[in-house]
C-alpha cells in the first residue's frame, strides 16, 4: 500500500473517532430517540420572561407601587435593596396561533411559531449571579470542574458524523461570564470538549495550516506522520498509535469539512434571508447545517440580555437581533421535515424580577430595568418530540413564585436526554467516588406533559 492510499484506508479501518466513551456492554441510545440533535440557544444575561412569555396582567395594577413584603422581605437580590417597586411590562401581549399562547410584541416573528413551542414556566435555580447560574444550567452544579451538558451527550452518544465533533459551540457578542468552562469537558476526556466555531480567525482553533502552506503539502505531511505511526504500531502494538493515525486523518478532513460548513454562501439566498443578516442569524443557519450533518449538540450563546436598566429600550433591541433568526430556524427546520428530529431549547441562566430596578450597579439612577430572579423563569422547547402549543407549570399572579409544578434544572436535562433516547440515570461517569451524572444525585423528572 503506498502512503497516499493509506490515508484513506486507515480511516475506514480504525473508524470514527468521536465515539461515545460510555462503558461498553450497554447499547446506546437506551431506547428509540425522538431527537437526533439538540440546538440549545442560551440567551446570556437572562432576558425577562415577564416581558416575553409569562404574561402577568396583574402587574399592571401594581405598576409603580411598593412591592408586597413577601416579595422582598428576608430576600437577597443582586442589585435591588430596600423596598422595591413593582413594574408592569411595558410591552403588549397577545394570544397567538391555534393554541392561543400569550406572547409579547417584542417577538413578532417567533409569535408565529407558538404552536410548535412548549413553555416551561416554572424553572428555578439556586444562584442569582451569572457565572454560577450559567454553570448550574450547563453542568448541574454552581462551580467549576464539571462537564457541560453537551459533553455529557457526546459521552453518551458520540457523533453521527465522523468528520465533525459531536459538540459544537458558537458565541455572538461577548463570551458568557463563566467563559469556556461552559463547554468544558470537566472530568470527562477532552474528546468531549465543546469545539467552538469562531466567527473571526480560524473557525476552529488551529484549523488553518500555517500561512502559505499548500494543501497538498499538508496532505503529504499527514500521510508521512501516519506512515511513521504505523511503523510505531508495527513494533509496539500500541493501539494508541492507531488511534493517533485516525485522529490525524480526521483532523485533515475537518480542515476541509469545517470551512465548507461555515461557508454559508452555498445556501440559497431565500434561505439566508429567513434567518436575517446578523451574526446570530448566521449562527442559527449554521446550527441547522450542523444538525443536518449529525452533530449531536449545538449550542449558541448570545450575550447582553442583562437588562438591569432601561428595559423598555434595550430588550426590544436584543429581541430584534434574535427574533427573526430563531423563527427562521424553526420554520426552516420544519419545512425540511427536520424539526421532528431536532430539539430546539431556548434558555437563560435565570429570569428577571417583577420588581423594577431603578439604580444601576454603580449606584446611579437609571430608567427602570429588572434584577436577576432565580425563583421562577421560562425555558421553552420545540421540535424533537415536544408537544407544541403547550405550557408546563404556572407562576403566581405577580410572576414571582411558582404556583404549580416547579421544574428543576435537572428535570430539563433529563427531558433533553430522554428525547435523545438516553436514560438520564444511566449516563454516568465514575469520579470522586460517585457515579457522576448531569442530573446529579437527586431524582430528576422527565416533563412528560410536554412530550408529544
Amino acid at each position, binding site marked *: 500500500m503506498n502512503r497516499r492510499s493509506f490515508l484513506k484506508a486507515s480511516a475506514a479501518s480504525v473508524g470514527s*473517532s468521536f465515539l461515545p466513551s460510555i462503558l461498553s456492554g450497554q447499547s446506546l441510545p437506551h431506547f428509540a430517540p425522538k431527537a437526533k440533535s439538540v440546538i440549545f440557544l442560551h440567551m446570556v444575561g437572562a432576558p425577562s420572561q415577564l416581558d416575553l412569555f409569562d404574561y402577568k396582567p396583574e402587574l399592571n395594577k401594581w405598576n409603580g407601587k411598593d412591592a408586597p413584603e413577601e416579595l422582598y422581605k428576608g430576600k*437577597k*437580590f*443582586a*442589585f435591588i435593596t430596600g423596598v422595591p417597586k413593582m413594574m408592569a411590562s411595558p410591552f403588549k401581549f397577545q394570544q397567538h396561533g391555534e393554541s392561543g399562547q400569550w406572547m409579547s410584541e417584542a417577538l413578532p416573528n417567533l409569535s408565529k411559531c407558538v404552536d410548535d413551542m412548549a413553555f416551561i414556566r416554572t424553572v428555578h435555580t439556586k444562584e442569582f*449571579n*451569572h*457565572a454560577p447560574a450559567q454553570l448550574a444550567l450547563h453542568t448541574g452544579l454552581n*462551580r*467549576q*470542574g*464539571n462537564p457541560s451538558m453537551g459533553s455529557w451527550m457526546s459521552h453518551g452518544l458520540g457523533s453521527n458524523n465522523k468528520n465533525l*465533533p459531536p459538540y459544537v459551540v458558537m458565541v455572538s457578542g*461577548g*463570551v458568557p*461570564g*463563566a*467563559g*469556556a*468552562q461552559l463547554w468544558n469537558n470537566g*472530568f470527562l*476526556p*477532552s*474528546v468531549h470538549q465543546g469545539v467552538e466555531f469562531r466567527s473571526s480567525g480560524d473557525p*476552529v*482553533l*488551529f*484549523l488553518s*495550516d*500555517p500561512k*502559505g*502552506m499548500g494543501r497538498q*503539502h499538508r496532505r*503529504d*505531511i*499527514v500521510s*508521512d506522520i501516519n*506512515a*511513521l505511526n504505523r*511503523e*510505531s504500531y508495527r513494533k*509496539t*502494538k*500500541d493501539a*494508541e*498509535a492507531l488511534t*493517533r493515525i485516525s*485522529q490525524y486523518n480526521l*483532523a*485533515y478532513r475537518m480542515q476541509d469539512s469545517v470551512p465548507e460548513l461555515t461557508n454559508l454562501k452555498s445556501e440559497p439566498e431565500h434561505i439566508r434571508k429567513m434567518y436575517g443578516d446578523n451574526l446570530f442569524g448566521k449562527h442559527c443557519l449554521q446550527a441547522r447545517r450542523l444538525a443536518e450533518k449529525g452533530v449531536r449538540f449545538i449550542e449558541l450563546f448570545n*450575550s447582553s440580555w442583562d437588562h438591569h436598566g432601561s428595559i423598555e429600550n434595550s430588550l426590544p433591541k436584543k429581541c430584534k437581533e434574535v427574533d427573526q433568526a430563531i423563527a427562521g430556524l424553526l420554520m426552516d427546520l420544519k419545512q425540511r421535515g427536520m424539526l421532528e428530529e431536532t430539539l430546539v431549547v431556548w434558555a437563560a441562566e435565570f429570569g428577571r424580577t417583577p420588581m423594577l430596578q431603578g439604580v*444601576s*450597579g*454603580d*449606584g446611579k439612577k437609571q430608567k427602570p430595568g429588572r434584577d436577576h430572579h432565580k425563583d421562577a423563569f421560562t425555558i421553552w422547547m420545540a421540535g424533537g418530540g415536544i408537544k407544541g402549543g403547550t405550557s408546563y407549570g404556572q407562576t403566581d399572579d405577580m410572576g414571582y413564585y411558582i404556583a404549580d409544578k416547579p421544574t428543576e434544572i435537572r428535570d430539563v436535562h433529563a427531558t433533553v436526554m430522554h428525547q435523545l433516547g438516553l436514560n438520564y440515570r444511566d449516563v454516568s461517569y*465514575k*469520579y*470522586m*467516588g*460517585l457515579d457522576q451524572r448531569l442530573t446529579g444525585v437527586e431524582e430528576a423528572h422527565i416533563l412528560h406533559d410536554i412530550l408529544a
Partner: protein
Amino acid sequence: MRYILFLFLSYSTYGAVDFEKDIKPIFEAKCTKCHGAKKDKGGLALHSRRHAFSDPNGEVILAPGKPEDSLLYRKLVTEDEDEYMPPKGPLAKEQIELIKQWISEGAHWPEDENEHKTELNWSLKPTKKNSLPKVSDQSWPANEIDYFILNKMEKAGFKPEESADPETLIRRVYLDLTGQFPSITEIESFKKNPSVNNFEKTVDRLLKSTDFGEHWATHWLDLARFAHSDGYQRDGFKDVYPYRDWVIKALNNDKTYDQFVIEQLAGDLLPNPSKDQLIATCFNRNTTVNMEAGTDVKHDRVKQVMERVDVMGTVFLGSSLGCAQCHNHKYDPYSIKDYYSFMSFFNNTNIETRMGNKGKGRTIFYVGEDLKDFSGKSSELYQKSLKEKSALEKKYIAKVSKLENGEKGKSKKKKPLKMKACEKIHREKYKKNPELNGMMAELKKAKQVISRNAPVVTRVMKEMAQPRDTHILLRGEHTNPGKKVSATVPEFLHDMPKGAPSNRLGLAQWLVDQENPLLARAVVNRWWAEFFGRGLSVTLEDLGKQGEAPTHPELLDWLAADFKSHWSRKTLLKKIVMSKTYQQASITSQDKLVNDPSNDNYSRATPLRLKGETIRDVVLQVSGLLSKKMYGPAVKPPQPTGVWRVIGRVDNTYEVSSGEDRYRKGVYTIWRRSAHYPSFANFDAPDRGACAVRRTRSNTPMQALTLMNDEVYVEAAQAFAKRIQNYSQAKTNVEKIRYAFMLSTSREPDAREMRILQDILEREQKENRGKKYDKWFTVATVLINMHDTITRR
C-alpha cells in the same frame, strides 16, 4: 382507647422498653425498607445505631429523653398529611407509645459490635509494613516493590517483561522525573554502560536537577488548583507566582512531605512564620473568587471555605468528603457533623470580598489578606512615588484643563477631565508644549520607580482574632444554619495528636500524624500513577467505599508505611524507578494484551502520552528554543487571538511575552480559568477552577491540529529544521535524519523509518515548496507530530 392506654401504663411499670425486643422489630417492619442499609431516603437510615444517631441533615433524629425534640417521634405523630411517617399510614398507637417511651427512657440502643468492624473500609485501617511475600523467581526483584508485584504476577500466571532497552529506559526516567528528553550524548553514554549502578547514578542526578521540581510542580498545581485568575464572570488576574515558585523549590529541596503539608495548610500559624511559610498558605487561597457585581459575598465566602474542606478531603484524605456537605456520606463514615467540624478549622479567615460603599453600587471589591513582599525593593520609594504620581497627575490635569477651558481651568458645562482624556488632548493639540512635556517626563520617571519597587503579592491565610462560630448548614445552604459544631476530627479516625491546638495547625499536625492511614496512601497512590498511568487503587481521588480497592493492597501499605518513616518524596520516587517493575519493557505479548488488557499485574510498563505542558517543553527543547530561566511572573507564549474575551471590567489584552519569556517551560505559562492556554487544554489540562486529581490522556483530532498548526509548534518546527541543517557533525542527509530522529524519540530510526524519512526528503526536494516550509521543515514537523515523540514508552 382507654384499654390501650392502660395496657401501656402497666407495661412500663414492668420496666424499661427493650430496644432489641420492642423497637427494632417496628423499625424493621415499618421503616428500614426506605430508611435502611440499602436505601436511605432523606439521608435517614435506621438499620444501625451509628446511622440513626448521626443526624443526617443536621436535625436531631433521636434526642434521648426528649421525644418532642426527636424528629423521628414528631414524624410519627404529626397531623400534617405530607409529613407523617410511614407515608402509607401511621403506626399503631401502641407502637407510637412504645417508641415515645423508649426515647423518654434514653433511647438506649445497644452498640452492634460488628458495626465498625464490618464497615471500616480498607483505606481506614492502619498502614503497616507487611513482610515481603514469597516469589519463586528470587533473581528478579531489585527491591521491595518487586516482591509484591512478582508475587501477584506469578499467581496470575504471568512473567515479567525483560528490562526496557537502555534508550527507552533512559528516556522514560528522564521524562518521568524531569519532563525533559535526554540529550544524545546522555543516551549514548548510557547505552554503553546500562548497569544498575550507572542507572542509579543517572536517577540521582535527575532528582538533583532543577527540572525535577518544575516538572513535578505541575502535578501538585493541578491539585492545588493554582491559576492566575479568580474564575467566574470577572475572572480578573492575580499573579500569585511566589506560591508556584515555593512549590518548585520545596520539591527541589525535597521538603519532607509532612512539612510540605503543614506549611501549606497552616504556615501562618507556625511560631514566627518565615516569609516562605506564609507564601505556602496560598494553597488555600487558590479558591475561585466571584467578583461579579451584585454577588452575595457571604455566600461566596462560605463556598470558598467549603471548597477548602473538600480539597483537604480529596488531597490529604483521599476522600469524597464533599458528599457530606448536605447529608451524611452515603458510603463512607463521614457524617454531616464531621464535615462542618472540619469546616470549623477553616472558617476563621476574613471575608475576601465586599460590596462597594455608597455611591459604588453593587460592585465587588477584593479585600482579602495579601502578603506584600518588598524584598530587594524600596517600600519607601514606592509609597513616595505613588504620592508623587498622583500629585503630578493632578497638576497635569489642571494644566490641560486650563489650556482647554481658559484661565479658570473649569468649564461650566463639561465634566472635569480625566487623565486619559488629558493625555489624548495633549497628544493631539499641545504636542510641543514644554510644560506639559516636562510633566509627562516626570510622570514617566515616577511610574518607572513605582513598577521597579512594586511589591510581589501573594494571597495568604490569616486567622481572625475572634474565631467564627461554625454551624451545620442544612442542605449545605449558608442561610440555613443548624447545630453549632466545634473544630474536631471524626471519631472513627485517629485522635488529634497530644498538645495539638484546635486550629488549622492542629489539623495539619493531625493529618501528618503517623496514625493517619489516609494521607500517605493517597499521596503514594497518586505518585504511583504518574509512573504507571494508573494508581494501585485506580480511583486516585477516592479511596473510600465507592472507590476501587487496590490491586496490590499490601504494596500500597508497604509504600505508605515506608514513606511515613522518612517523608522524603525523592526517596520514594527513587524506590519506584529503581524497581524492576518500573524498568520493564512496555512492548509485550499478545497473550498479555488479551488476558490482562489493563495491566492489573504490572507485568509490563505502560506507554504514556506526555502532558500538554511537557509536550511543549520537549518540543521547545529539541528545537533549541527552550529557555531554562526559572521562577518569576507568569509568561504569555503565543496563543491565537480572541481566546481571552470575558466580559466585565477586566483587561483581555494578551500581549505575547518577548525574548526568552516566549520559550519558558509550561509551568510558567499564565493560567486563566475562563480560557486556559488552548494547546494545554487540548491535551487534557484542567482549567484549575477546581482541584483536579487525574488528567485523562485522550487522543483527539484537536491534538493533531494543535501540533500541526499552533504558531508555537510551527515556530518550533522551523527552529528544529535549522538545527538539523546546521548540525555540523553530520555529513550526509542520513546522518542528519538520524540526529533529528534521536533528538525527538531518543532512539535510532530503523531501516524502514529511515526509508520513510529519506523519501520525505527526496519528495520535498523535488516539490521545492519554498524556503519557509522547506524539506527540513517538513521532516521537523513530521518528527514533532510523531506518536513516539509525544509518548514515553
